[in-house]
């Protein structure tokens, strides 16, 4: 029985571990420098915990097998071993807490963003993303680089004004509302996250970032995509019965394609 349990534990351990080595089911390729750093943090964690996982399960199986074999020796009368106890406590503390310190700078780079700005600059595009059940609304500041004011009284989904934009106010006339996000490659983008109704979560797997959209709060994320392509934006916070189909797309295109696209969108306004 002991050997059987050992074999079962070892077999299960290997079966769990192998797909992490072969990367059979894996993350899509990262398209930002920060994403690469997040992947590195993940890889360090995977190596560290992977070794502990294999060793711990191997030791469990071995112990169960070895000490169930018939023997004339009596059971050990050991009550413990303080030196060993201190050794593995320290080792666990160094590995586990150490990982946090090693990987934390990436978090700081991603999330420590001054909260006041919402002003597009020459080298930063700002896109406002408003979640609602079960669609994403993207707003661009338009030619004047200024977001117009909104008013909930003006919200009218059917008339194409899901965020209540005041077109008559200064800055509002040229704001562009679209259902999918388009950004130039290699340009820093600030995503301003809002919600009209319940919690949603803005998640683009290739960017490796996600953040809840919280009604009443403004959330911010920044990224610089380095690879052109079409990527899915999926909702990752339960938002109601249509949660599973609340998605949109992020198109990363060349600056020229972006300029042409934004001009085309602007032309529909007037």
């Amino acid at each position, binding site marked *: 029985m002991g050997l059987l*349990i050992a074999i*079962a534990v070892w077999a*299960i351990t290997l079966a769990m571990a192998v797909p992490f080595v072969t990367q*059979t*089911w894996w*993350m899509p390729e990262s398209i930002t420098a920060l994403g690469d*750093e997040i992947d590195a*943090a*993940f890889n360090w964690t995977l190596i560290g915990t992977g070794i502990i*996982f294999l060793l711990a399960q191997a030791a469990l199986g071995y*112990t169960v097998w070895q*000490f*169930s074999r018939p023997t004339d020796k009596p*059971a*050990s*009368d*050991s*009550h*413990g*071993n303080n030196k*060993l106890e201190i050794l*593995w*406590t320290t080792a*666990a*503390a160094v590995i*586990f807490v150490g*990982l*946090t310190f090693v*990987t*934390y700078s*990436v*978090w*700081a780079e*991603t999330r420590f963003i001054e909260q006041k700005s919402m002003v597009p600059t020459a080298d930063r595009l700002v896109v406002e993303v408003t979640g609602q*059940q079960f669609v994403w609304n993207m707003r661009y500041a338009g030619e004047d680089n200024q977001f117009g004011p909104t008013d*909930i009284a003006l*919200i009218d*989904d*059917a008339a194409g004004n899901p965020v*209540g934009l005041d077109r008559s106010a200064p800055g509002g006339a040229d704001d562009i509302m679209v259902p999918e996000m388009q950004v130039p490659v290699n340009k820093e983008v600030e995503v301003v996250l809002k919600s009209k*109704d*319940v919690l949603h*979560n803005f998640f683009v*797997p290739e960017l*490796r970032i*996600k*953040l*809840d959209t*919280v*009604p*009443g709060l403004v*959330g911010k994320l920044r990224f610089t995509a380095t690879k052109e392509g079409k990527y*899915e934006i999926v909702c*990752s916070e*339960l*938002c*109601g*019965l249509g*949660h*599973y189909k609340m998605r949109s797309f992020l198109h990363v295109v060349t600056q020229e394609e972006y300029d042409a696209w934004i001009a085309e969108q602007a032309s529909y306004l007037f």
Partner: protein
Amino acid sequence: MTEVQPSKEVAEYTEVHRHPEPKSFLWKYIFSVDHKVIGIQYLLLAVVAVFVGMALSLLVRLRLVCPECSYPLLGQFFPVGAPEGVMTPEFYLAMLTMHGTVMVFMVLTTAPQGGFGNYFLPIQIGAADMAFPRLNMLSFWTTFVSFLLLMAAFVVEGGAPMSGWTGYPPLSALPEATLPGIGQDLWLASIAVFCIASLLGALNFIVTTLDLRAKGLTMMRMPLTCWTWFVTAILGLLAFGVLLAAGVLLLMDRNVGTSFFVPAGLVVSDKVIDHSGGSPILWQHLFWFFGHPEVYIAILPGMGVTSHVLSTFARKTVFGYRAMVYAIAAIGGLGFVVWGHHMFVSGMSPYSAFVFSVLTMCIGVPSAIKTFNWIGTMWGGKIRFTSPMLYSIGFVSLFVSGGLSGIFLGQPTVDLYFHDTYFVVAHFHLIMGVAAIFGMFAGLTFWFPKMFGKMMNEPLSKIHFWITFVGVYAIFGPMHYLGMLPHPRRYAEITSVDYLGATGAAELHMFITVAAVLTVLAQFIFLYNFVKSIFAGKECREENPWEATTLEWTIPSPPPHDNFAGKVPHVYRGAYDFALRGAKRDFAMQCNDDKAVYGEPAPQASGD
């Protein structure tokens, strides 16, 4: 009242006042104040609840592999949620919500603490009953009311709530955003009532542990099971009050127009919601301030049982008893300062992530101590493969697997990718779900002869162990891979996201569902074994069939009404005196004095 002599094992005892046994059925079995009857009531409630919870998870699994399949029987019961037997997305979410709620509250919180703790804490510390027997009865019946309220949510108009077991507002606060109906209100009422019941129970456990220990039973001689029940009770006392408050506030937001959790300016379907000034994140703080300790409320008693069983069947003292006690206390203490790791991507201040992350990683340290010490306990032992031993070995394996994925999720940087994906689902199911349940299987098979004076069928238990052990890994192992894709959780189907269709999520889901169906079927083996053994199991009137050391094994099986028949044994040694040298047997019971263990003359005392 008949005079009963104490066990031959007892060296000395103290006479205490005896209480007569109630005679009528009502007071003996229904409104009993006997902790043993109440313990069994809790266990039976948990057994009913766990089958309800499992059925719900099966529905969830079935819809995930085939959203358009029709189950006509289901359509009969739920004509709205499953018209013509086809489950709607909202029905899926309702089943998901109820599965989580039933399992977390009615199974993981009731059975380990209210069930086994109630039954065995007083006996293991040498008490005739809990400190407040009537309060104990009130705890159970309050819990029962809570269960009924929760079940009622299935049958009201609009059906069960669909905002997840975490009930995040505004989704849970606004009927406009889900389906109208009082399902969510019943859910909240059920949780609030459950909190009251748990608070009463927690007080009782704490006082009992501190005040009613037998002579000689110092805290550091207590079985580790008692330590875990004690620390769990402290967690319950501090955590459930907060959830109670949160639940009442949310109920008020829904029904009397307050705005604790709902901010101004919400618009649902072009309709402006009449609320202002609340914060959805406030709920998350309150909920997880309860929710994280709740994880330890579920798993600590399982750790205690595992330590107890591993030592007993390895015939060896617990490795590092003191370190184990400190680890239990450290896990309990740290459990209160890590709730923010559930909220890394919630919109909470990003600056607070660091402290929550470091503290979370710190919990890995006592957890590692426990794992090493469990292996250390078996190392050098003479293992006996009884079914409780198998379940406990399974517990250790599952605890390692489920615990280590927490190292990923505890770092905000890595959590950015995995948060709210199936990676999380795999993590918490392995550790607080099935590891805790393996602790319960170990406890039930271990104590069954004491509780019922019968043995469970060992071969059946072992068959059940093997299927379940392999089965739960087959279910929850692949969920890690779904998380890699990354598959967001709580999706009613995977048809609307392109990359899920392209990357093999459907095949993984099918594998998981098949494994789940087989594993669920295997649970009927256990149920059959449990029920059959109560009525027609092999008689086992021995006091101590496992050659164990603690006080519950010095009294008849099943125990008399007041446990020790008025003669409470004195305790002379720690709880795990195995592998003794120069002794008559390889173990010493806690109530054996040195003369009984070694004969004359007594050598140096061993023990704590």
